[in-house]
């Protein structure tokens, strides 16, 4: 279980998180929605230790995420798909996927790591011909798939997806959404996804949390998304220009 309690983070005068409280149960898929700049990415970066909160506590299965006993062992439990893929340009696709298996505590023999990389690439619908290409030679959709393969390569217990469908056409976005749902279900992983895309929300989420004004404004099962009374949530879900969320026109 991932639990955030009263998490604050400011960048200069910009108070991004102002007391976030959120619990994500083991084996569930939670999608965090919210407008641009509301701190969704900062939230998951705080859990991973990429950004240090100013205040508050974050625990993963009771373990303090901000000061884990072993950072390597802690991070080995996570996989992450970055918004832009964040694939390493200097490495071929298979080495990107097997990055964790080629070094550090999870190191495997090179041939075994390559075999696992090919298996994970196949799982996301990419053939062995892609393995020796470099990321710059791939389309945006293929890069997302490779990023997804890298995120699941070491069999993580917890997977984060940051804007998994941004920049993709609707068909490819649907394919990626389907893959995420399938993979999370078959691995039994705990997942947190950040997105603006309501199609993704409905495809991926068990539960939804809306971040606004630095706090979790609404949280509940995806089935209650359309019937919720919260005016902020209704405006966001409906994509309405009029409502309590200020918009620039």
């Amino acid at each position: 279980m991932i639990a955030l309690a009263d998490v604050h983070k400011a960048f200069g005068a910009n108070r991004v998180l102002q007391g976030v409280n959120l619990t994500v149960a083991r084996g569930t898929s939670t999608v965090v929605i919210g407008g641009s700049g509301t701190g969704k990415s900062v939230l998951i970066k705080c859990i991973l230790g990429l950004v240090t909160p100013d205040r508050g506590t974050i625990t993963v299965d009771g373990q303090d995420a901000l000061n884990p006993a072993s950072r390597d062992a802690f991070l080995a439990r996570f996989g992450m798909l970055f918004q832009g893929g964040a694939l390493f340009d200097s490495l071929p696709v298979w080495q990107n996927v097997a990055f964790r298996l080629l070094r550090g505590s999870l190191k495997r023999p090179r041939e075994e790591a390559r075999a696992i990389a090919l298996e994970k690439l196949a799982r996301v619908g990419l053939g062995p011909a892609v393995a020796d290409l470099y990321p710059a030679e791939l389309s945006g959709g293929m890069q997302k798939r490779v990023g997804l393969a890298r995120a699941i390569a070491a069999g993580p217990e917890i997977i984060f997806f940051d804007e998994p469908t941004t920049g993709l056409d609707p068909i490819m976005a649907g394919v990626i959404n389907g893959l995420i749902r399938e993979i999370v279900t078959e691995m039994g992983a705990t997942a947190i996804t950040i997105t603006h895309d309501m199609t993704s929300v409905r495809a991926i989420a068990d539960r939804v949390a809306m971040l606004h004004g630095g706090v979790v404004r609404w949280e509940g099962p995806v089935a209650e998304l359309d019937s919720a009374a919260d005016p902020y949530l209704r405006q966001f879900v409906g994509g309405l220009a009029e409502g309590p969320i200020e918009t620039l026109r």
Partner: protein
Amino acid sequence: MNPALPLARLGRATLAALAAVGRVTLFAAAALSHLVRPPFYLREFGQQVMQIGWFSLPVVGLTALFTGGALALQIYAGGARFNAESVVPQIVAIGMARELGPVMAGLMVAARVASSIAAELGTMKVTEQIDALTTLSTNPVKYLAVPRLLAATLAVPALVAVADAIGIMGGWLVGITRLGFNSAAYLGNTADFLEPWDVGSGLVKGAVFGFIIALMGCWFGMNSARGAQGVGRATKAAVVAASVLILAANYALTELFFSA
């Protein structure tokens, strides 16, 4: 206007500069501490030796050749004012080994490598590749900075040695073709007057310059601001800082090694 305002601004700028020096020092200390702790990324180190050392050879060699030749012409013309034209071989050799070899190689590598490191790491920063390294249980300083720092610290002295040899050869070529020197006498004078410490001091300078170049490239790259403009600024800052620090370090080392 408040008369204390300029002083306040000066104070803030001074504090900011000192804080920046502190952060760079801590970054360098962290990188050095990783030098002796596993895991060691030998493949990445080898790649950086090629990038920083081998691929810099043409530019360093050409620069040294022309500098050695120009130095011979200048010493000959200047020496002629007090009948000292014959010292061309000795001064070219000492000048190249002690000063021009290390400084020219350092500046050329700074232009070529500090910019390249800052741009590469800056792009990695803004495309979240550095965050991705962390989530993959890999320390970015250890994986990215340490191989570059070690490779530059070892490769630049080698480039200095090459620059010394080619620079002296440039002087010799000009000496025998343009200034009327006897080839054997020129080389004999060079060998007789050049002492091991002339060369050794230049190699030590090269190692220091190499460390500065990689440190500035890594620091500005890994702390690049967002977007193309941020990477551009990081690249420019890395080259400027590396060049100024090389010249400052050159003076400090010359004082240390050769002051009376």
